[in-house]
Structures are given as C-alpha cells and as structure tokens.
C-alpha cells in the first residue's frame, strides 16, 4: 500500500499541502455579524486598515449572540456587533471591553408588494407590528439570538404583542442569518425585520420592498470591544486595540462613511457620540 502513496497520491497531496500558506504574518480575528460582512462593509474598509498597518483582519461572521460567545471562549481578539444590551452584559461579565460606539444604521420592515396587513407608510413601527399580528400575516423571525433578532423582540414588546402565540403559524422563526431569512421571506411573501445594509446588498428580493422605515425605534447601533487578554492570554491585545483605535479614528470613520451601494450610504459613523435616543 505504501507504494501507491509513494508513486501517486503522496506527491499530489504534498503539492496540495505545500501550496503557499495563505496566512499572513500579522493578523487578528474579529467576531462580527453577518450584516457587516454580507453588506460588503468589511470588504471595503479592511483593505484600507491592512494597507495602513500591515495587520490582516480575519472576520468570522455570525449572529451577535454567537459572535459574543466566540469572544467569551477567547476564539477572537475583537468583537464587533450590534446588540447593546447583550454587549453591556458581555463587558459586565468581564469578557472584554470597554465597549465603544462605532457606527449605526437602521432596520427596515420589508414585505410583499401586496401588503396584506396594510402597513405601508405607517410612521409607527408598533402599530405596524400590531396590524401584522391582527391579520395573522406571515412574519419571518431570525430566531438566532442575533442583534437583529434581539431588536425585533424588543419591537414586539413595545407593540404589546406576544408573537410566540402565532409560532409555527404566521410567526416563523428560521434560526438563520439575515440572508437566508430574507430568502425565506421572499419565497413565502412574508414580512421581516432586516438591517438596511444587508437589504441593500441582497439580490434575491423578488417582490419584497421596504414598507416601514425611518422610525427612531428602528435605530441600529454597532459597538466594538477588545476581548479581555487577562482572561485569555493569547489574545492579540495590541493589534486588536490598534484596529479598534483605527475604527474610531478620523480615517476609520471616513472609510465607513464612504461605503455606498448604488450611491446610498449604508453605515453612519458615530464614534463616541451619544447614541440617538430611541
């Protein structure tokens, strides 16, 4: 058997394994959200940071809850997410911090053009959700402990509706990222809460369109934290801090502001400014 390895398979495998390793010398791992990765923001700003500092940034894109868990386990150096309550818990538990504001964008509610619950143009998100529940119109929930999922649950609470009563019927939890959830909503002609960034870069819209936007309740703040190097000694604290400092610097904030899809700005830098009242 060893013969066949020597003669055929081994050289092939060695060639494959010996391909130039794609790892860069200096790198940090950032646990972030699908919205920042899939909207294309990281593809726009990270090369600028790497060019300036020589530090490669490896982004693992997950839901906010999972991304914070990755930070808790010490499997990332920096966490860059959007669920303020969960982030503050993360900092309070001593897993990292301090938490810094980086940027915001907003959520939108999209739905089928036919709009069976007749919510289009309502200025009040709570009223819109009450109408969807009353009409028992299909609504797709992320159901994955992501920042968007947390925001959606907060909105239902503010509307005074417990969507769990419609679970499995009109209220459908898919337990997946923003993109798959949007795919499902488009396929089922359902309503959904989406972050604007992912929505703008999403291609398979079919007859989905924005029905609710601009309500201050739909504000979506992103925060960044360094993972606690005292708890996890291998954390690349210096390079991680450098990334955070850059995000908050004029150069980083300008890079964020300059990212556009079809001329539309996706994220609004607000480093260390007060979060707009929601």
């Amino acid at each position, binding site marked *: 058997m*060893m013969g066949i390895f020597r003669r055929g*398979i081994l050289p092939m*495998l060695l060639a494959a394994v010996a391909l130039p390793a794609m790892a860069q010398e200096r790198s940090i791992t950032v646990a972030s959200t699908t919205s920042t990765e899939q909207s294309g923001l990281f593809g726009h700003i990270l090369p600028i940071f790497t060019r300036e500092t020589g530090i490669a940034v490896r982004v693992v894109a997950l839901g906010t809850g999972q991304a914070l868990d990755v930070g808790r386990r*010490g499997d990332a150096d920096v966490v860059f997410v959007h669920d303020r309550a969960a982030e503050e818990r993360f900092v309070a538990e001593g897993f990292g911090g301090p938490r810094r504001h980086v940027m915001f964008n907003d959520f939108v509610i999209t739905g089928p053009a036919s709009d069976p619950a007749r919510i289009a143009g309502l200025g009040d998100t709570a009223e819109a959700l009450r109408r969807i529940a009353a009409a028992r119109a299909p609504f797709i929930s992320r159901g994955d402990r992501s920042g968007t999922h947390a925001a959606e649950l907060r909105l239902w609470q503010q509307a005074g509706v417990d969507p769990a009563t419609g679970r499995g019927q009109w209220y459908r939890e898919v337990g997946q*990222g923003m993109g*798959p959830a949007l795919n499902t909503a488009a396929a089922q002609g359902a309503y959904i809460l989406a972050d604007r960034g992912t929505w703008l870069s999403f291609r*398979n819209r079919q007859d989905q369109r924005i029905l609710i936007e601009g309500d201050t309740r739909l504000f979506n703040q992103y925060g960044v934290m360094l993972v606690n190097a005292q708890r996890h000694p291998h954390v690349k604290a210096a390079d991680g801090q450098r990334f955070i400092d850059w995000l908050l610097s004029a150069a980083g904030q300008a890079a964020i502001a300059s990212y556009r899809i079809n001329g539309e700005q996706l994220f609004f830098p607000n480093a260390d400014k007060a979060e707009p009242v929601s």
Partner: protein
Amino acid sequence: MQDLASAFTTAFGLILSLDPAVLAIVALSLRVSLSALLLAALIGLPLGALLAVARFPGRGGVITLTNALMGLPPVVVGLLIYLLLSRSGPLGSFGLLFTPGAMILAQAVLITPILAALTRQVLEGMWEEYAEQLRSFGAGPWRAVPTLLWDGRFLLLTVLLAGFGRAAAEVGAVMVVGGNIEGFTRVMTTAIALETSKGDLPLALALGIVLMAIVLGVNALAQGVRSIAARWAG
C-alpha cells in the same frame, strides 16, 4: 430558467477568466480536502483492512459502529472539533480554530469512518480468497493488512474518491470550524453558502458548477490512472 442560464454563463466566466479570488478558493478547497483525505486514509485504510481480516469479540459491534459513523452529520463533527479546538477547549493552545488546519481535521474526522467501512467491504472478499494461501506462507492477519491494501489498490482508489467527494462537498463542519474567513478559510462550499445567503443565487450556483467540475476532474483523473494501471496489473 433565466437564473439557471445565467448561472451557467457565470460559471463559464469564472472558469475562463481565472479570477484570482476564485482560484485561491479552489486551491484552498483542494488543499484542505486532499490533506484531509491523506490524513483519513492513513487511519481509515489500515483500520478497514484490519476489520476485514481480524476476528475478535465485538467485531460485529465495531463494524456496525463504523457503518453508522458514515452518516455522521457534518455539523455535529464541526461542533465537536470546535469545542476541542476552541481556546477554552482541551486543544485550545494550538490556536487551530478558524484556520485551514481545523478544517482539515474536521473533514478527516468526517471521512475516516467512510474510508474504513468501505475498505472493509472491499477487502473482505479479497481476504476470503487470500486467507488460506497467506497463512500457508506464514502471514497472519497483521501481515495480511499491507498485502490486502496493496493488492486492492485499484478498488481502494474508488473508496478514496468517495471520501474525497464527501470531504469536498461538505459545508457544515468547515463553516463552523473555519469561520468562512475571506482569503483564509473560505472554500468552495462556504463561498456557495455565503452567496446563497446574500441572495445571489446565480453566483452561488455558478460556484457550485465550478465545484462539480473540479470533483469531476479529480474523478476522471483517478479513473484514468486506474484504468491504465489496471490494464498493467490485472
């Protein structure tokens, strides 16, 4: 229909343009899956051969177990490897999580039972034929293992291809342990999953077509080698 047509057009475009980003993803896919195949073969082939020749109490149970492990859900393997390799896990100090090494390990774990179970099936018949003659030569089961592996080499090539196909097509485990990091751990399957999430179904399908073409190419190459060599060795 339009999406399908556009997927094929995009696929051909991707192949013909030799887009460096796509090439890097293809190269990483091959590197990860072939390394996993080597690792799994080093364990699975001898193990399967040993199961074919050895007679010991509990052998039936071990065979049932390897057969069952063939159906191991990739995500479960991914989680297992994730927890092992996490900085908070027992093997955390190696810093392998979210690297190609973790992906190789996950795929190897996934396909080792496949290689072992299929190798056992393939070599069991050969052992029935060889057993008496080899014992006459003074070779016991242990010595028979390398003999059977060598004599079954052309049949085992098919077994290796099955393992490679499963490894290359797998998405759940490498997504969890690799993290789908652009330019570092993004392979064909996780790229397909990502483009699907972004709703770019034609691009996702095009990448799928490229993946199929690669797997097809590897199979054709291996079968070509096999048929030429089989003509020689009988």
